[in-house]
């Protein structure tokens, strides 16, 4: 994806158009869109607890967004974050149930387990892509369903809860990522230590991509495979590493979701955040900092939708519709880049006609 104009303007246009589409849909069912949006944003931000929940949702979205963005940089489309989340989350849940260690050491173990679980699920499509040229989109989708069914049978067999057949037994609160001081600061709610994992991941990914040889090679493979190969970069190795790290990041997302936000794993569900993360990455233009802010934005939409549904007639799926519309408009960003280029050119022309001669204006038009 090459943007001639500013990535921020494109993202902003996509968001505004997505919100307008959401407003039109609210109007279509006879609701007042301003009221709907008011409650949607209020539901995400009205007090410390809700802000905590927004951030807790955003943590997972950011990590999935980073995963997708990381793969994008190497020219790969990781649509398998949902499955990687499940496996990473399962590994974290197993650690939470069976490993008892002093807190700092425990956190390191659980993070490592989740990362490795996700990385395992990511590296398989990476290997298939590198060795056999199997398209990573199909491979990761197949891995999603393999993870889905594995969890479906593994959880009731080995982690069965006391009452419900459809979820694993709850993790003891001390073994989750929740932390007393964070819980106190945000008046209860789902806020957890995952926020530090997410921030660290953003910084590390940014550092790796911008400042290391590995990052340079990954990006080189992403922008032109053949050129990278000609320059002596081992393309296949980079494809495998990229998918492995992307999987690991999604595994961390699974940890923050299943052992932080929630305290058990539900079976029979592919976590929808694995797909929302694609939107996060696209809106953030695959830039770690961009992913951080777009994760916060989508986190707000997702955590406010329940409140909106309670206060108005608008179904909660409006948030997902807005997110999907934003992806569509990001995919068709050519429209906006053309639009903003035109705006920019016109402004330039106007300035030139004010200061310069008519001849220069003509030249500007010819560009």
């Amino acid at each position, binding site marked *: 994806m090459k943007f001639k104009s500013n990535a921020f303007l494109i993202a902003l246009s996509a968001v505004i158009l997505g919100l307008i589409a959401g407003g039109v*849909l609210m109007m279509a069912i006879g609701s007042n869109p301003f009221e709907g949006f008011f409650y949607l944003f209020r539901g995400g931000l009205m007090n410390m607890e809700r802000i905590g929940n927004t951030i807790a949702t955003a943590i997972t979205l950011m990590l999935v967004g980073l995963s997708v963005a990381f793969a994008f940089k190497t020219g790969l489309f990781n649509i398998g974050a949902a499955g990687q989340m499940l496996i990473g989350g399962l590994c974290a849940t197993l650690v939470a149930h069976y490993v008892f260690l002093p807190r700092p050491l425990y956190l390191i173990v659980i993070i490592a387990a989740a990362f490795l679980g996700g990385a395992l699920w990511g590296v398989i499509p990476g290997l298939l892509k590198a060795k056999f040229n199997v398209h990573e989109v*199909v491979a990761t989708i197949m891995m999603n369903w393999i993870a889905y069914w594995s969890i479906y049978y593994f959880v009731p067999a080995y982690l069965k809860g006391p009452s419900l057949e459809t979820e694993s037994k709850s993790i003891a609160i001390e073994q989750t990522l929740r932390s007393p001081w964070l819980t106190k600061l945000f008046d209860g709610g789902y806020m957890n230590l995952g926020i530090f994992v997410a921030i660290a991941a953003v910084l590390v990914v940014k550092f790796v991509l911008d400042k290391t040889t590995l990052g340079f090679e990954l990006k080189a493979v992403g922008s032109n495979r053949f050129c990278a190969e000609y320059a002596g970069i081992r393309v296949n190795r980079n494809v495998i590493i990229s998918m492995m790290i992307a999987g690991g990041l999604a595994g961390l997302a699974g940890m923050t979701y299943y052992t932080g936000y929630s305290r058990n794993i539900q079976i029979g569900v592919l976590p929808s955040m694995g797909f929302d993360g694609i939107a996060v990455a696209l809106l953030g233009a695959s830039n770690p900092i961009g992913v951080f802010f777009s994760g916060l934005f989508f986190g707000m939409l997702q955590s406010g939708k329940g409140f909106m549904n309670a206060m108005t007639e608008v179904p909660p799926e409006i948030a997902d519709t807005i997110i999907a*519309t934003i*992806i569509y408009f990001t995919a068709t*960003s050519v429209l906006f880049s053309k639009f903003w280029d035109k705006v920019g050119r016109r402004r330039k022309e106007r300035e030139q006609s004010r200061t310069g001669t008519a001849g220069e204006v003509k030249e500007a038009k010819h560009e």
Partner: protein
Amino acid sequence: MSDLRAKRFFTSRWGILLLVAIGLILLAILASISLVGRILPYAIAYTIPLLVTALGGLYSERSGVTNLGLEGLMLVGYFASALTIRMTEQTLLENALPLGLLAGVVAGALFSMLHAFASINLKADQVISGTAINMLASALTVYLARTIAGSGNVRIMLGIVRKNIPVLSDIPGIGTLFFTQSYWSTWVALAVWGASWFLLYKTSFGLRLRACGEHPSAVASAGVNVYRMRYFGVGMSGALAGLGGSIILVTYSGEFNGTVAGLGFLSIAALIFGQWKPLGILGATFFFGTATTIANVSQVIPQLGVIPPVLFKVFPYVVTLLALVAFSKRSAAPKAVGEPF
């Protein structure tokens, strides 16, 4: 060398035909064991939506547009037909069913225009556009279901009744296997399959469409409008995926519940597995349909109960991965698929 030749043979048209034939003969033999006789109607019921949807994918990919949105397009058809049948079944009775299928086809075709516009006119990344279609469909259909029908689930009263085909069902063996207790939608789907094969491989229109997926500039220089051909391809993929979704509703589901559970993605896998050819697609989807059925019934059949059910459930996906590995060296994908023109 002989290994390569064997591989080439088994992936050629005659090879696939032979494999299908062997499979059918085996089935006919096994038919004496009542197991297959019991499984086959379900296997066919699961195969048909996959077959129709994968055929839709064939039109789109052959014209040069990757369509990862088949899952969402199926869902749109599923929803539109559920809503139509729900609203008309009281007055039109059985006639509501074909009307519902038609609504699914139209809705799928219309929705696919979003993908066509993005990937043909705007030269967007087709994989991302397809993903957007999937997410949009799953959010929008449930949103509309909640507001129009009052709940995320839309249940219908009617369904297609299984019927014996007169005369043909009296043939011993084959007749009892294929012509008893069949849905009429199955025959519609098979007719669509035959017509698609004819259109794509026996007419000059089909040749042009396929050429758009191989070398669009050559087709353009011959005076054919590539954009129009690709719009047709994507539109057909939407229509057929919509039909596939509707068939799920009127045969084995009976209710719109907001998801087609990955069948659209499985259709894409079947398209690749079937090497972008009608006969290959028929074989691949039938394989998936049978695998799904066996997974579903494995619990109630004592002979299969000893094997952990998870193995049956992941079987189709693992085999797809293995098949993709096996076909990777000589992929028959249209050369220009996914590339904007």
